[in-house]
């Protein structure tokens, strides 16, 4: 997907640009993400969880306890269902192996709150985000497929903890989880809600 490479290029450009930056308020976070489909998403499209994803965010610390920024990511969901006979109309049946494939690329404004600021070795946080969600949904009957791309709303709420490492404590580990809310009123479905867990690295720039 082209969008993934655009995101990658932007992040790489950011890394290079900030090599000499003297502002310690910016931080970049890159995570591996594991996602569990919920609700209508789970019952109507894929019930299997997805190990194919990542998230990234770029945050600016307004104060030791509060950061705002931009979050994005990528997640690919896929499930192949055993051959079944589907009744399509009066007298018509189709026997096929059904494959559902759905990709999501969120782009959200994000806020993080650190109740203990920088005072502790472990920095727990709560986070909220809201914005858009690129969705590419493909469905295949056998090898014959159709696709639909759209943009929808996406909101998220999560918790996590950051563990600063290194002498300057300007980088560290981030682990956490989130609930992502994504309405999707197409093809009889209602939403693409997910529960997510992530683990990755963050880097604060000085």
């Amino acid at each position, binding site marked *: *997907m082209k969008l*993934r490479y655009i995101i*990658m290029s932007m*992040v*790489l450009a950011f*890394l290079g640009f900030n*090599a000499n930056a003297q502002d310690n308020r910016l931080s*970049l976070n*890159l*995570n*591996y993400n594991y996602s569990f489909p919920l609700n209508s998403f789970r019952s109507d499209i894929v019930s299997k969880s997805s*190990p*194919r*994803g*990542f998230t990234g965010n770029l945050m600016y610390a307004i104060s030791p306890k509060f950061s705002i920024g931009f979050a994005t990511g*990528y*997640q*690919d969901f*896929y499930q*192949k269902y055993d*051959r079944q*006979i589907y009744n399509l*109309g*009066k*007298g*018509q*049946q*189709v*026997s*096929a*192996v059904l*494959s*559902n*494939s759905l*990709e999501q690329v969120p782009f959200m404004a994000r806020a993080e709150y650190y109740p203990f600021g920088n005072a502790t070795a472990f920095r727990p946080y709560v986070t909220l985000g809201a914005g858009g969600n690129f969705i590419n949904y*493909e469905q*295949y*009957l*056998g*090898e*014959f*497929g159709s696709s639909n791309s759209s943009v929808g709303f996406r909101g998220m709420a999560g918790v996590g903890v950051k563990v600063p490492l*290194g002498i300057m404590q*300007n*980088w560290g580990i981030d682990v956490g989880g989130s609930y992502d809310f994504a309405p999707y009123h197409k093809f009889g479905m209602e939403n693409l809600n997910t529960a997510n867990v992530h683990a*990755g*690295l963050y*880097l604060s720039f*000085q």
Partner: protein
Amino acid sequence: MKTIQSAMVLGLVVLFSLGCKKEPINNLSEEESRIYITDHDSTINFSNFHTFNVSDSVAVIQNGGEFHRLNATDSAYVDAVKNLMQSMGYVYVAKDQNPDLGITVNRILSTSTGVISYGSYWDYYASYWDPFYWGFPGYGYGMPYGYAVYQITEGAVSVDMVDLKDAGNSGKLNIIWTGLIRGSGIYNPDVAQSQVKALFDQSSYLNKSL
């Protein structure tokens, strides 16, 4: 700092690798790639039909034209229809013995033709393959022709069932059941039996022995 940045870049590459899309088409076997579509006249009671005949060749329908032939694959499909109809309780009779049902087997081929213009492709060819690569730095490429034509052929096998028993009363040959097979590897005599069986299996109303 440089080390950490390098680690982040490496981590990013790993993350993007992990985030690759799983392509549905690449995860299908030949058998899984196939679909079987059947339809029938729901007002028909198939138990009223007792005998049948199958066409002695296959109609190859291609881009509006058609011809009949019988190669090994065609013959395998015709034989499969004959055998499986008999296993469902129908009696095979010669065409001149007034069969209740007439069955045809068809190969439907659709060929589409496309054209690729080399215009913009060649305009940037030197950036894809710098003439330096061939030992001619500073040279340009010449292109004596500007487009390429390609053809893609898609195919299907269909089996159609015609009501011959009531043709005299209705004044027409009603097609009362159709089956269509699409997907990879279907033009193969080794799979003909299983393909026709799949059509009949999902049409249990055809089976007189149930």
